[in-house]
Structures are given as structure tokens and as C-alpha cells.
């Protein structure tokens, strides 16, 4: 962002930033922003980013349009938040809505899965010349990890196309957990290998590997050598137990559900307790409902409803919700009109819903609105960069902080996104 001259004093920058983003000179609620060098007031220590891949229909979920023909007969139900309704397919989330801030005015221009998902994660459009880091990598880059040994950034059941650490070094990439039920795979030394054997072999691998790395300037070659050391350290760490969700009692495991997303969210909660900063959990279902919308939703919604509600309830009961920001995201919404031929809904980036809970976000709150049928934004549009800036804001990150890509281009955590401060009490 060349828009922020580096010689501008920080205070002047902050003032200018507040002006541009809020249209007023200084807002009372943003007192912390005023202090020179002080980060905004942060409530959230960790983020759980729930990603529903494929493009989640908004009107069938968190932005219902009761009585409209577009609903195809699906009803809206009341929730624990006054005046807030969700679709009948989310009975359990309905009982958690007093924790949730719905953002019903999300909007984007990217109607292709790959491009939308990229924007959701990086705040940038996908371009061929650079790969931007995902938000989780920014968070560990700027905040570090609370836990010395565990990586601060974990991706559970992530897609192979996750942008990862982008142009940041590989150690900021999320640690992928492919099967949350199995914990961190391969983290235990085979019984046939003694510790002395392991140490000797690891030392030999390092020594021989460095012969290769010395002749090979390619950064990934050196990264593999470094990763090996990190992995060896991690294997000896007590913290590995964190990855074992079977240590939870049966009732807790059952509450989250035995499907991948359920296990992933339970693991995410354990990681939050261990001080991991940013955990993304991707649902294993594909929400790209081009065909048979209602039937597909009937099949897919129960498991996410169960898991997301269980996660909020569990975090709340453990007193973790205040310091944990939970975000539900997707790449776009779906067309309000049911396709007459396929009975499905098409891609619809014009308006869709994400939600936040905990981490200082207001509960039982709705920000922004879509129009009567959920086709356009009616009020307070919020972009993906804005929402990512909001997450950064909740964590107390300096959204004006500049990092340079290897080619010297300056970037900030959420590009030109501005935090939606109205979401915070």
C-alpha cells in the first residue's frame, strides 16, 4: 500500500486512517487508537476461522427471507437474539445467536470458487505474479505464538489451494491437520527406533542435507532442512497431547459430533487453550449447491448446525469466548432464485453472510442488510478485506503495518480493508 507514506508519523497516520475509515475525525470508542504506538484495544487472543467451502447460500442459512417464494418453502425461526431469525435448518445455532454478530451485507466481486476463496483468505485478488499470505500467517507474523513450541497457525482439513504463507517464509504457513481425529499425524517415533537411533539419524540427515542445500539457493530446499528440525523438536514436546481429542470426555466429543468438522472444531478449542493464535477449520462438505438446493441443504446443515453451536456453547462455558473470536466464512452466497431446471442456486458474490462471535464482538447483533430477496446489499456493505481488517482489529494488530514482499512491494494485513468497529461493544 503505497498510500501510506513511510515518513508519516504514526499518530498522523492513525488519525488519517480513522478519518478515512469512519468518516469522522476521532471516534470515542476508539480511544486506544489514539495513543502513539499503542495497538487498538484487543479482546481476542485467538481466532477460530470456520470456512464453509463452495459458497454457502445466505438465504437458506443466516439471512432468511420469511415467506418469500425464493425460500422454496423453508421457514425462518426465532432465536435467542431479539428480532433475529435464522432458517429452520439451524435450530441449535438459533439458541446461540445471543453470542453472534451476523454480517448480512458481505459483498465481493469474485464469483469463482478459487478466486473468492483466495480473497476471503488473503484480502487480495488472485493475480499471477504473487501469492499473498493468508490472514493466519499475518497473525503469527505480527503477534507470534503464545506457545513456544506449537505453531501459532493451524489449518484443519484445509484445501490444497489454501494460500498458506504466500510470500512469507514457510515457517509461517499453517500446520495442516488433515484428520483431526488422528491428531498430528506421524508425530510419534516408531517403536522400532530408539531415541538414540533417531537422534543420530536426524543429525546425519541434517549434515547430508546441508551439502545439498549449500548448492541449492532455492528457498524451499533450505526450508525442508529447517522443517525437519522443527518437527524433531515438536516430537519431543509435551504439547503434542493437545492434538489428541480423545482426551476429551465422551459427552464433549458427542456434542461436537463424530464428523470431520465436529472433530476439527473440538481440536480447535483445545488448540485455543494451548495458546495457538489462529486455527482454521474447513467443513468437509461441499456447499456448492448447483443442484437440488433444498435436498442438499437438508442433508448438509444438521452437522454444521450441531458443531458450530457446540463450539460456541463450549467456549462460552469455559470462559474462553470472550478472548476467542469465532468467524464463519465462505467464498460467496448463492442466487436467491432457485434455478428452474436444476433446482439449485448459482454463485452469488453480490451479497452473502459471514458471522463473528466472541472476542469482544457484540452478541445478538446484525450488521448490514440485504434487500428483500437477498440479491443486493441494502445497507452497510462490508467487503472481505473489511472483515479481515475487523479480525485483525479484534486481535489488536496494527492494520497499517507494512510488510514487504521479496520483490519489495509493500502490503498490509487486510489490504485496504477497514475494520467494522460497530461490531464491537
Amino acid at each position, binding site marked *: 500500500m503505497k498510500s501510506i507514506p513511510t515518513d508519516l508519523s504514526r499518530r498522523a497516520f492513525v488519525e488519517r486512517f480513522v478519518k478515512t475509515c469512519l468518516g469522522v475525525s476521532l471516534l470515542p470508542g476508539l480511544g486506544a487508537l489514539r495513543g502513539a504506538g499503542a495497538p487498538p484495544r484487543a479482546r481476542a487472543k485467538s481466532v477460530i476461522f470456520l470456512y464453509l467451502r463452495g459458497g454457502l447460500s445466505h438465504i437458506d442459512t443466516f439471512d432468511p427471507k420469511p415467506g418469500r417464494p425464493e425460500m422454496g418453502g423453508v421457514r425462518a425461526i426465532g432465536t435467542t437474539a431479539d428480532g433475529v431469525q435464522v432458517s429452520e435448518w439451524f435450530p441449535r445455532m438459533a439458541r446461540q445467536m445471543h453470542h453472534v454478530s451476523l454480517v448480512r451485507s458481505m459483498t465481493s466481486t469474485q464469483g469463482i470458487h478459487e478466486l473468492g476463496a483466495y480473497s476471503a483468505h488473503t484480502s487480495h485478488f488472485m493475480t499471477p505474479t504473487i501469492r499473498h499470505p493468508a490472514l493466519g500467517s499475518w497473525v503469527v507474523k505480527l503477534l507470534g505464538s503464545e506457545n513456544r513450541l506449537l505453531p501459532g497457525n493451524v489449518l484443519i482439513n484445509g*484445501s490444497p489451494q489454501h494460500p498458506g504463507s504466500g510470500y512469507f517464509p514457510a515457517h509461517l504457513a499453517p500446520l495442516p491437520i488433515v484428520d483431526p481425529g488422528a491428531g498430528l499425524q506421524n508425530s510419534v517415533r516408531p517403536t522400532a527406533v530408539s531415541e538414540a537411533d533417531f537422534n543420530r539419524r536426524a543429525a546425519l540427515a541434517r549434515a547430508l542435507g546441508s551439502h545439498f542445500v549449500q548448492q541449492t539457493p532455492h528457498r524451499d530446499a533450505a526450508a525442508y532442512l529447517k522443517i525437519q528440525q522443527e518437527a524433531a523438536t515438536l516430537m519431543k514436546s509435551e504439547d503434542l497431547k493437545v492434538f489428541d481429542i480423545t482426551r476429551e470426555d465422551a459427552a464433549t466429543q458427542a456434542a461436537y459430533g463424530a464428523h470431520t468438522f465436529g472433530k476439527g472444531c473440538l481440536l480447535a478449542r483445545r488448540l485455543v487453550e494451548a495458546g495457538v493464535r489462529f486455527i482454521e477449520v474447513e467443513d468437509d462438505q461441499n456447499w456448492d449447491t448447483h443442484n437440488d438446493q433444498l435436498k442438499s441443504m437438508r442433508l448438509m446443515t444438521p452437522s454444521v448446525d450441531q458443531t458450530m453451536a457446540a463450539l460456541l456453547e463450549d467456549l462460552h462455558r469455559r470462559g474462553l469466548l470472550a478472548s476467542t473470536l469465532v468467524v464463519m466464512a465462505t467464498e460467496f452466497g448463492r442466487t436467491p432464485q432457485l434455478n428452474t431446471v436444476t433446482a439449485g442456486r448459482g454463485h452469488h458474490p453480490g451479497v452473502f453472510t459471514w458471522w463473528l462471535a466472541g472476542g469482544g464482538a457484540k452478541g445478538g447483533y446484525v450488521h448490514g442488510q440485504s434487500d428483500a430477496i437477498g440479491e443486493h446489499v441494502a445497507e452497510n456493505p462490508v467487503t472481505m478485506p473489511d472483515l479481515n481488517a475487523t479480525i485483525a482489529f479484534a486481535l489488536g494488530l496494527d492494520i497499517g503495518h507494512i510488510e514487504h514482499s521479496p520483490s519489495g512491494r509493500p502490503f498490509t494485513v487486510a489490504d485496504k480493508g477497514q475494520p467494522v468497529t460497530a461490531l464491537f461493544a
Partner: protein
Amino acid sequence: MRSIPILLIALAAPLGAAEVPRFEADVLPVLYRHCFSCHSEKQAKPKGGLRFDSAEGLAHAAVIAPGKPDESELLQRVSLPPTHEDVMPPLKGGAQPLSDAERSVLRAWIAAGAKLDGWVKFQHREAPLDAPVAALARAAVPELARQVDALIDGHHRAKGTTRNAPASDEVFLRRVYLDVAGRIPSLEESTRFLADSRDDRRARLVDALLAGEGYVSHTYNWKADQLRLNPRALAGGQPAWLYDDWVKDVIRAGRPHDETVRQLITAKGYLWENGAAGFYLRDLGMPLDHASNLSRVFLGTRMECAQCHDHPLEPVTQKDFFQMAAFTAGVSNLSSPSGYSNDNVEQWPEIKALLARMDADKALQDGVSRAISPLKRLTTDNDKPLSFPATYVYDAAARGRPVSPRTLFGDEALIVDGDRRRAFAEWMTSPRNPRFAKNAANRLWKRVMGAGLIEPVDSLTALTPPEHRELLDFLTSALIGFRFDERAFLAVLLNTRLYQSEAVRERPEPGAPFGLHGPLLRRLSAEQIWDSHLVLLVPDLDERKSAMRHEGSLLNPARLRRLTAMTADEIIARSRDEMAYRARRREHTLRLAEQKKALAAAQAGGNTAEARRLRAAHAQENENFFSPELQALEMGGAEPAPETDPRWQSLPREFVRASEIPLPLPLGHFLRQFGQSDRREIDAFNRDPNTTHALALMNGELAARVLAPDSPLRRQLASADGRRDRLTALIYRALLVRSPSDGELSTIAALTATSLTPVEDTVWALLNSPEFLFQR
């Protein structure tokens, strides 16, 4: 995913002080990249009424003051800071500001008088390739390789650069196995080649590998990533593996690329009659996505932005996109009717009448519907033309009106007898198509060299970047000359001195053109890593096939063929059988579950006699269930057949080439960990390092099996002469396909001096060396 994001688009190279930029070579590409998406004749209403795509338009726009760069609005506007509201191009939708190099090109050109050198206007519609290309025989390969090298030498002479030093036999050996067969050579294969002293040993190896089954496997992975072959994505109840097998057969038989694409685009019928129908079943209900994916993969042209609006960065309009999509949009499986009709199930009217006469209950209706559901997916054309969307903003009158198919570039496609797909396929694969062969040549080049001559490979436009134009044109002609025989074309590349040079070991700068010094060093794909481990574990790896899914399975094509021929009566009888089968299956599953519970209780209670009885009952239960009558129904799950080949009897069934393992894979599978594409989208693989890779290599099953005392590798080592350095040399040859250096020998000697297991130590260390994971 682009692990090496290099962009070879001609970002005008910095010019020497004395050089005056030429309009068409240097200036036009800048205008094309940054201006034409809003200021050209392509837009219904060019922004500000300005058109920069013709001499007349430029003159009329009056944004250039020849000789006075600082007074030229064009240069002023593109030089404003990005925050300025008047900056050009407007930085939205992913648009990038001009680079300093691009600005200096404009400045120098304007300063020198802004001469157009006779240029009149830009041809948005790229011309067809006109010159006929004579057929080439496979015997032409050596001569063509020499000609490619001559072009490369010319490039280096002009640039004052050089090709890297020639690669040794060892480096060539490992590289060519990885590129062609998708795996490292086995110890025997290495030893055989390294003992060959014939002058043409490399050319012979190239030919042998291209003719081998390893080539089929590796090429399948490469194509599967492009075609997004993911059985789960095929419509319900379809034997999706038939499409995978069709692709493998095409590769194995060496059917030309153009013919293959024609068969895909014109595919008709049921999947069990024509595997190519999977091309459309893959994208059920998504005609527009199908069209944009097809364009990326076969034409190297990204059009998906234009699905919803004019392309923000290219002079490609939404209308262009819809006109192209209109060729394939009428395929029944793309705009899928969700119900049954006599269009897709021939017997449907009779079945319906029969069910009504019988006053069939809901259960039977559902049962019939389920039994014939595979028939529903008949790939055929319907009469419904594609219409402009209700949101079409460029011409309100066109909304909801049918779109006439029209190609984006090259020739027009002439539709004969209403067969749109035939016309589209002929146009697409014609040697006159300016992008079809070029795209294929560029992708094949990338496959073996590590990066395309144009990057990204799907960024072909009406303006070919000048950097490697001559070389790419030559290669394109060669591919056409070989009549799209991919093997012959690859043979040319693999026989070049460029390919047989030392690798470029740096990661190229993003945006830098391919330097033509040598192939790029790169991490192996997930499939190559898996397959290379298996080379150490599975004798004759390429010959081992997955025990599959066919016989007795729900997906048996023979059973589905019979279904197509059944009368309505027979289908209803069949449906009843299937319903009875499912009821029995449910009871059977329940009994099995109860037995398992009882068995666990008996075992926990230490009641061995009871446990034995229950195990026997369990076996009996299974045997009873799979009675001959039930098996005749061909409903059973796809149990893999036990291995009968003595070479592989001690190995797990799933130790086969990655190409033989059906997707989707379980979450924790090695291939997924190392970034295999899930094939939901094009080339969605990932080759970035991650801690989990180190864990898998150190503690995973594959490493443990390679190290096991009875592994094929250990047996080979055991039978070798026992001297330490000789053993170490064998291990190096088996794993890294080279000899150890003196330094490495002494490192190993020092670090294993007191070890009781020096062989295991060395194997373990090399499997865990980054070198194993890279192609150099």
C-alpha cells in the same frame, strides 16, 4: 496452485539509453495490458469514449503529445501515485499499476516522437494460423531437437547469456525418469543405464520411457489435474472410474491430443458406453464453469472473469464468453433436468404408465427411481439455447435472449446440421486455431522444463509476448507437424541440449521470463514422491494395478448395459429385487454390529470359547449373506480382490502408483499431505514445504517399510559386497541416483562410527534429505 509463480508476459525489459522503443513490439503490449480492457472497440461503451486500439482512436483521444512526455496526459495519468483518484488504470478488480520499466518505455517512445511506424489498428480477433504444416515423422526428432537448440543458442547470443553446463548421465537419468515415468529409476534400471556406453544411450532411454507404462501413469496425473478428474464430483450413481480409465486408455494408445479433445467435446451417450461422457458429467449443472475451465485447459485462455461481467483486465467481454459457452451449454448434463423423462430414460413413459396402472406405492416408486438413476445421466444435446443472463448490463434488450455461438478468435466455426459441439470441436482442434496447439506445446514444455515459455500457462491472449515467440512458434509447428502426437513432441524436448543441461537451482524471480539456461529445479509432486518411495518397495511397480471396483460391483458397466436394454416390466422386477436386497443388507449389517458388540464383550471378559464361537458366527453370517442369488444381483460393494501375483503378495493392496489410487483419498493419506490436488479445480496441487512432510518422512509407514530388514532395498543391499563405501554408494544410487562425494562418505563414516545400524542410518538420512524431494 503455482508453486513457482513466474510470469513470462513481456514486462517490457529496461531499454538501453540509445534504444528507441518500437510501437508494436514495446508500446502496444503496455497499452494492451493496462488500457484495452476499458479503452478499445471491444466495449459497448469505451470509458470516456476513448479508444487506444487504433491509430485513429489514439489521435482522437489526444492523450499523447509527441516529443513531450511530460505534457502527455497518458504518461501523466499512469504516473500518478496509486492513491490519486485520477490514476490510470483504476486499481480495482486486481488491476496493477504500470511498472517503472513500462513507464520508461512510454516516456522514451513519446520523447522520440510517438511514432506508430505504420500501425493502423489492433486486431482483437487473433488471425488463424495460415501456413500449412507438413507432417513430421518420428524420425525427425533428433533434427528438431537440434533446431530447438539452435534457436536457444541464438537467444543466448543475443542476450549475452549462456546455457548451463551439460548434465551428467546420473543427473539426466534421474531427471528423465521423474519427468517421463513420474518416479525415480530402480537400482537395476540405474545400473543398466549407467553401464551403457553407446553414444545414443540417452535417446534410447527417452524412447524406452515414453513407450513404457510409467509414462501412462505420470501423464494421467498431469491430465487428471487439468481435467479435474475427481470421481466424487461426477453425478450420483455413476461409475466415474470409467472416465478415468478412458483417459488412461487414450494415453496408453497414444491417441493424438486433438482427437482426444474432439472426443471429449463431442461426447455423447452413457458413461458405460463412452467414458468421454464424463467430461460433461463432471460439471453437472454448471455449463458456464465448464466452458471457462475448458477454455483454460485447451486454449490457455482464462475467461472466467467474463462469466459475470466484461473482463476487468483484458479486452474480453461478457458477450464473448457467452458466445463461446453457447457451443456446449446445451448438453443435457450441463443444464441438468432433475427429473426423469423419455429424453434421458428411454423406457420412462412405459415405466410411468405401468406404475400408475399398478397404483404403486411411494416405496416402489422410489425404488424404481433409484434403480434407473444411472440411466438419467445420458449425455446428449437439448434444444435449449444459452440465454443472456437477467443481470446482463451491457445491453438490456439482450437479457433473456438466446446467445448465438461464436468463437473468440481464429476462424469462425461453421455449424452444420445444428451440431454445435461438432463445429466447436473442429474449430478448437484445427491446426489453424492460433491457441490450441500453442497452449498444448507450452504446457508440455512446462511439464519437462519446469515453467512455460509463457507463464502462467493459461495467459494466452491476442498479443503473444515477444520474449520467446520464435521458439514457441517453432514448437507449436512441431506439435502440429507431429499431428499432436505428444510422445514425439516430448521426445524432441527431452533430446535437446537445454533439457540435458544442469538445472537452474535458484527460484526464478516472479515475472522473470524463462532464462533458457536449463530446466528448473523443483520439488517433486506428491505423486512423484509417493511413487518414488514405492520404487524402493514394489518390484515392477508400473505393472501393478489397483484391484478394482469392477466385478460384482454396483458400478459394473456390464450390469448397467443390461439395464439400458431392459423393458419396463424387467426394470420394475429388478427394482423389487434391489429393494429386497437393501432390506436384507440392513438386517445383515445390524446383525454384524450386534455380533461385534458381543465379541468385544466376550473378549473383554476373557471368554475365549465364546469369542471363537462368535467369530465363526460372524464368518457364517457373511457367507450366508453373499449367497449366489445375491451375488447375481451385482449389488455388492467393491471389495478388492486378493493379490495373486507372487511378486506382490506380501505388500498392501494400496501400494500401487498414485494414478491407480482412486480419489477422493482419506484425509490423512500421504498423497494429500504432500499436496496432491483434490481435483476440484484445475492444477490445484500444492508443493510448499510443511512440518508435516518431515514428520511423515521420519515416522511414517513408507519409511518404516523401506527400512524393514526384508524390504526389497535391504535385500539388494544384503546381497551386495559388504564393504562400507560400496554399500553407501549403492544406497546413494538407489535413492539419489548418484555417487556420494568424498565429503559425504566421511560425514557418514564419522556420524555412524559407533552405530550398530549404519545401513539403516544412511537410508533413513537420505530419505529425509531435501535432495530426495527435489528434481535437479
